[in-house]
């Protein structure tokens, strides 16, 4: 069954069919990426999982419970860091747990330290660089009590170099905490480097077209990016996305 599972989920806005019969699951402690052409309804998918809207058909199950159109079951990291400028870094990290009603600043401080942001607890977001803000946004989602994190193209606004640094950083910190992750991206390299499994969405109306199990072992080294196997998988995904 898996931790989070979507069963035959469909969604349309009027005559605009966005998702059609989407089914997949994410296991405990698994890192699953979703890639798809732009405008293929990836964001809609997250909004359904987040409970902002109800699916037209199908069920969204979390830990065996049906969570259609019910909020507060996932933690979330958006595309832009969306840090609150009037809160210090520590207060920002505490935000997600505050909303869930359980504030634990010891854990938050520990996470800030681990994220390499020690000494910035009392700083404000406008004093941080883009990559640092994204780190804060990630540990904010990590600090909330929900056991599955949804990441919506979190590194797409960063430059190439910072992006790679962030991917490595994400892996190290995730390997320590091992929460289930559902990761949306349009970057094939990123999906291959980070995830256990990759789901490829089709054009609109989107459904899961193909599932690829990423064979690389963890912890992942940087040089897998240049191996023949990596290139082969990349070509395969690229081909799937095109045709």
């Amino acid at each position, binding site marked *: 069954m898996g931790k989070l599972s979507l069963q035959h989920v469909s969604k349309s806005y009027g005559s605009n069919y966005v998702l059609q019969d989407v089914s997949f699951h994410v296991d405990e402690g698994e890192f699953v990426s979703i890639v798809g052409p732009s405008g293929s309804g990836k964001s809609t998918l*997250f*909004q359904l999982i*987040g*409970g*902002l809207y109800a699916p037209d058909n199908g069920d969204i199950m979390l830990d065996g419970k049906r969570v259609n159109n019910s*909020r*507060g*079951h*996932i*933690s*979330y990291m*958006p*595309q*832009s*860091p*969306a840090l*609150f*400028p*009037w*809160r210090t870094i520590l207060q920002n990290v505490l*935000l*997600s747990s*505050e*909303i*869930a009603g359980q504030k634990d600043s010891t854990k938050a401080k520990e996470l800030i330290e681990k994220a390499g942001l020690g000494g910035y607890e009392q*700083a*404000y977001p*406008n*004093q*941080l*660089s*883009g990559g640092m*803000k994204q780190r804060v946004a990630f540990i904010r989602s990590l600090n*909330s009590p929900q056991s599955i994190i*949804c990441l919506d193209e979190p590194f797409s*606004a960063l430059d190439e170099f910072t992006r790679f640094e962030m991917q490595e950083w994400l892996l190290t910190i995730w390997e320590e905490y091992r929460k289930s992750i559902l990761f949306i991206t349009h970057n094939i390299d990123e999906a291959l480097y980070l995830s256990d499994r990759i789901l490829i969405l089709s054009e609109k109306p989107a459904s899961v077209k193909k599932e690829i199990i990423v064979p690389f072992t963890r912890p992942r080294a940087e040089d897998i990016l240049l191996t023949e196997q990596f290139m082969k998988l990349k070509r395969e995904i690229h081909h799937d996305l095109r045709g």
Partner: protein
Amino acid sequence: MRAIIKKGWRPVSVIILLLTIWEIAGRVFDIPAWLLPVPTQIWDEAIHGWMHYSSHILSTIRLAFSGYVIGIIVGLTVAILLFRLPVLQEAFYPLLILSQNIPIIVLAPLLVIWFGFGMMPKIIIIVLVCFFPVTIAALDGFRQTDRDMLHYLKMTGATNRQIFWKLQWPYALPSIFSGLKIAGTYSVMGAVISEWLGANKGIGVYMTLASSSFKTDRVFVAIAVIMILSLSFFAVIALLEKWVLKWQQQGGDSSSG
């Protein structure tokens, strides 16, 4: 301190220049004091007549401040209600604007007829001029809430109440403070106007008495006092703003993203 001098010398020298021209023109053309006193005469009156008007100042400050505080409370309450309940907003927004189209000068005598010469009609006038900028500024601030942050909170499962107090309210604070500053200067004007109606104390009373007895220098003293009061109100609120919104000043030069 040095920054203030560096920035402030230009406007200050312009004011000094204007006062000097006024002084010289008044003396050269020999304008009678009841028509237009020169700055030095006004200054003399301000110094020597201090005991004539000091109690009036206190009374005006008290009136303006109470009206202002009530005005803010009314303004913010109205803004929050209208924002949280869109049905109310549709129904009452036009009324809100209409309330500002009634000339205070016309309304004031009516209020005296209904409520007499006590504090009540005066407070009502100040509240009427103060609440509007606060309400509009707050509503604008609430509406402009950052969409990414809002989306984040919704996805995380925040309740509407949490969304309001953790995001919309703090997000609107800079906007609310501009409303508070405008209302602050209005409150002094409102207080003076309401005192004209009939009061036994206040700068407005001092001013009416002075002008009806052609003590023009005292009228100018009153004008100066009103200006200084308005400015001090403004300055106090600006300081408060700086303190509450201290996160805005830190860093700042890094690109917002």
